[in-house]
């Protein structure tokens, strides 16, 4: 499937998926008292200087195990279409990694947890990364 073909509108599944993501964020706060931001969890998963890296590494392992659980439960592999331009993906990865650490959060830390805390920093971050993402797709798909 080429990338710019229509993907079906799935309000129900997406709301339910969002609910599970929210439940996970609440669980992390209830058990560990921390924000469930994936960029922060990723950088905190190495035993460098923090002492509570172990649950973060386990969290990342859980993320990785999720498609295997879905495959085991439903018998169908998870469908996805990933861009195939590897140079573009390398640049994208660098920008996402650098930007999320520089900006102290990503879609989960600022987008889900930050908005839920009514944090003004997170609101600014979300509006900013949404805006540059919209403009990037606009330029790449409709202008270049």
């Amino acid at each position, binding site marked *: 499937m080429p990338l710019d073909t229509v993907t079906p509108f799935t309000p129900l599944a997406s709301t339910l*998926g*969002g609910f599970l993501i929210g439940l996970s964020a609440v669980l992390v706060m209830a058990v560990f008292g921390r924000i469930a931001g994936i960029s922060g969890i990723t950088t905190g998963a190495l035993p460098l200087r923090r002492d509570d890296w172990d649950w973060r590494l386990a969290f990342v392992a859980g993320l990785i195990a999720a498609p295997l659980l879905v495959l085991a439960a439903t018998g169908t592999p998870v469908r996805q279409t*990933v861009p195939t331009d590897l140079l573009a993906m390398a640049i994208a990865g660098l920008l996402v990694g650098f930007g999320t650490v520089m900006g102290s959060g990503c*879609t989960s830390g600022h987008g889900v947890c930050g908005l839920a805390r009514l944090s003004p920093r997170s609101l600014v971050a979300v509006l900013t990364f949404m805006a540059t993402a919209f403009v990037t797709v606009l330029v790449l798909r409709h202008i270049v």
Partner: protein
Amino acid sequence: MRIVLGFLSGLLFGVGLILAGMSDPAKVLNFLDVFGTFDPSLAFVMGGAAITTFLGYRLVWRRERPLLLADFQIPGRRDIDGDLVLGAATFGIGWGIGGFCPGPAWTALPLAAPGTLVFLPAMLIGMALATILKERRTAVA
């Protein structure tokens, strides 16, 4: 117990991403493509997740402390600085190119698409570079 609950939280998060369609870069890029093959589904992901978290946090914060660690650590900063805005702007450009943010990139790993296998290590390098840069500046200041 920390390992088990950490793993289960990550698993729940990952299954949520998959069910929501957020683990599919094509769906993410279509959400961002308002003037093309627009798919508004991800607004429902964000909405469902943020509302659940908003309500859940308020229940959790009635307790003295979290279950397994000593205290709640919640970011207290409220200032808007250059790092926040420039970092978020940089992240958005990468998100718009690749269709991956950090969570879905991890969840996509075992599906082993070539684009994922390039994106993920590049993301970790980017995170390491930003971490080093931030620490150097703190050391100088």
